[in-house]
């Protein structure tokens, strides 16, 4: 235990004294600060220089039947972000203006509610046609109703009738939980791949510099393996704590400038129990992969071999990541595949957490998943230490998995 602690402290010191580690952490905190201060800076800049109407993109409107002023006013009132210009030029001229950059888009109205929308590059988030359709159908409904004998006011008041209702959510609000689940899965993905690779490289470096010859005779392999992996886990968590901690601090400093941004608010409103689950799955998920990376690192003779050696683990992890990400974005996190994945220890840290955050999971399901995960971490940790003991003494070509297994179990005899 004393030995394990010494290795842990030494390895942790290696991370914390590493200039790259410190640099990256500080850099991330600065980026987060910049993002969090952005609305405040924007507000300060825009209050000094009021936005000119000339800055607004130009929307052209061409109509056949309606009066200029009515139509222009109607479009201007719903497209506040555009400078709406009425035009009676021909289609070709309108197209030229758009492709030439003089205008951003154009509505050409053909009467009877039909229209053509011209735009240079149709954005994924372009909702102009829906807005225009709502406007045009409103105008047409009023026109038809007055033609049927209603006054314009009656027609307006009929159209403005709205019904109301409320949603009572008995489970989870996917929309609200989506973002922090997304962030957590992504953070897990980044940290496991980065730190896993670091653990593997660290072991392989000790092996190739032959410091291993001395280490293996100075400390027990299990202490070495657990010390290294847990040190990297603490380093990873520290880095995340600094990044998310600075996000929280800078958000609180600037919260009034963020206003009611629901995404940002939902991220910082994570329930405590979910946060606890996040930490639990994060640590366990990290450990299970870091042990595997460490074991693989011990079998590589040269640093160059690391990338190819860790590929199967990386692929396994990316596979799990993709399953989780795809089901998250599809909105159904309770597919059969996700349910299976939430019990497989290599995918459960991501899959089970996603289901906990975005769906309703029975307590025993969570308990079983966590129990399987904890057992697997212990088993894989012990196996990794055994592979490590054998692997670090194997020089030459990277041994085949079969040989390693044979050596690990053969050495007991």
């Amino acid at each position, binding site marked *: 235990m004393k030995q394990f602690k010494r290795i842990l402290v030494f390895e942790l010191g290696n991370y914390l004294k590493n200039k790259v580690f410190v640099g990256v952490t500080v850099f991330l905190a600065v980026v987060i600060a910049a993002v969090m201060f952005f609305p405040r800076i924007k507000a300060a800049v825009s209050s000094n220089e009021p936005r000119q109407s000339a800055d607004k993109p130009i929307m052209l409107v061409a109509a056949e039947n309606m009066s200029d002023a009515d139509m222009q006013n109607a479009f201007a009132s719903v497209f506040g972000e555009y400078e709406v210009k009425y035009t009676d030029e021909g289609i070709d001229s309108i197209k030229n203006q758009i492709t030439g950059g003089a205008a951003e888009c154009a509505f050409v109205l053909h009467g009877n509610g039909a229209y053509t929308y011209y735009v240079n590059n149709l954005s994924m988030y372009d909702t102009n046609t829906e807005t225009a359709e709502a406007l045009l159908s409103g105008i047409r409904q009023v026109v038809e109703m007055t033609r049927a004998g209603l006054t314009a006011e009656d027609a307006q008041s009929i159209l403005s009738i709205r019904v109301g209702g409320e949603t009572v959510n008995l489970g989870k609000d996917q929309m609200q939980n989506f973002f922090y689940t997304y962030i957590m899965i992504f953070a897990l993905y980044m940290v496991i791949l980065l730190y896993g690779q670091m653990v593997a490289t660290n072991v392989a470096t000790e092996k190739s510099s032959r*410091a291993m010859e001395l280490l293996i005779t100075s*400390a027990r392999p299990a202490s070495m393996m657990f010390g290294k992996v847990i040190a990297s886990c603490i380093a990873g968590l520290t880095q995340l704590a600094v990044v998310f901690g600075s996000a929280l601090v800078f958000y609180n400093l600037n919260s009034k400038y963020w206003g009611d941004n629901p995404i940002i608010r939902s991220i910082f409103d994570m329930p405590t129990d979910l946060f606890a689950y996040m930490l639990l799955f994060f640590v366990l998920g990290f450990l299970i992969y870091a042990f595997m990376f460490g074991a693989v690192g011990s079998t590589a003779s040269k640093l160059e071999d690391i990338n190819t050696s860790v590929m199967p683990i990386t692929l396994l992890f990316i596979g799990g990541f993709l399953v989780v990400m795809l089901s998250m974005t599809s909105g159904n996190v309770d597919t059969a595949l996700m349910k299976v994945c939430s019990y497989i220890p290599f995918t459960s840290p991501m899959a089970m957490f996603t289901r906990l955050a975005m769906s309703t999971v029975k307590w025993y399901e969570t308990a079983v998943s966590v129990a399987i995960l904890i057992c697997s971490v212990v088993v894989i940790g012990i196996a990794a230490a055994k592979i490590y003991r054998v692997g670090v003494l194997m020089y030459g070509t990277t041994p085949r998995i079969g040989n390693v297994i044979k050596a690990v179990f053969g050495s*007991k005899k």
Partner: protein
Amino acid sequence: MILELQDIYKSFGEKQVLRGISFKAEGGKAFGLLGRNGAGKTTTLRIIMNVFGAAGGQVLFDSEQIDYNKVHFGYLPEERGLYPKKKISEQLIYFAMLKGMTRKDAIRAIDYWLERLGMTEYRDKRLDTLSKGNQQKIQLITALAHDPEIVILDEPFSGLDPVNALLLKDVVKETIAKGKIVLFSSHQMNYIEEFCDSIAILNSGKIAIAGELTEIKHSYPRNRLVVKSRQNAEIARAYAASCTQAENGELIITLEDAKSKQNEMQKLSGSYDIDEIRVFEPTLNDIFVEYAGQTDAQR
């Protein structure tokens, strides 16, 4: 203190590496473990240090099963290497602490050894800024700083200049004088011969010969005379059938009976101008070539 190996067996997969290794090394003496490359020296050393277990046999310390929590080892591996990018003092303290020292004791011991080996000025330097010989001295500190009962030195003199070799010799002599068990493994026979009272020569995983070096030497038939003379040609002619010339010019005369050597020596010194005459004893090199060089089938 006595370290004893009894009938150690070890195999890696199909390959049998050690086949019944037994020897005894005593405190206050140096023991030489010899053998050609691949004979099983490193495997034997690793079993002694419990890097892995033996498939059969046992390691005893003072006639009892060795307790690795109580018996400490210092090891200078043949494949040298520490953390090249780390500060020297930092890694030396780390290794000493891994061996069970407190930080305070470790610092004190490291400072003593840096001073003893003339390396104090490099205390806060990175290891990779040092020359190979100096790196080796730093590595030697990892083997000695925690004052282990058993010191294992694998090719300790390779890569050292004569001055550093002399320094290391002194350190080894001190260590032996302190009553430690010193295990040498080397191909440089002159150093083994200088330090080691006992040796074991490994050949294909077996002990080819083991015991006190002087006894091994005496066990050779004492029927050969070494003659150094200015009249080599005449002597060679007189003993034509039984005389050979060694590389250094000395004549080696093989007698039919060892008992006649006294008479023969008197006869030679009476008849010729003799500079030196003595009974031939094999060097360790001769013994090594004889025992380590042969395969099982040849013996």
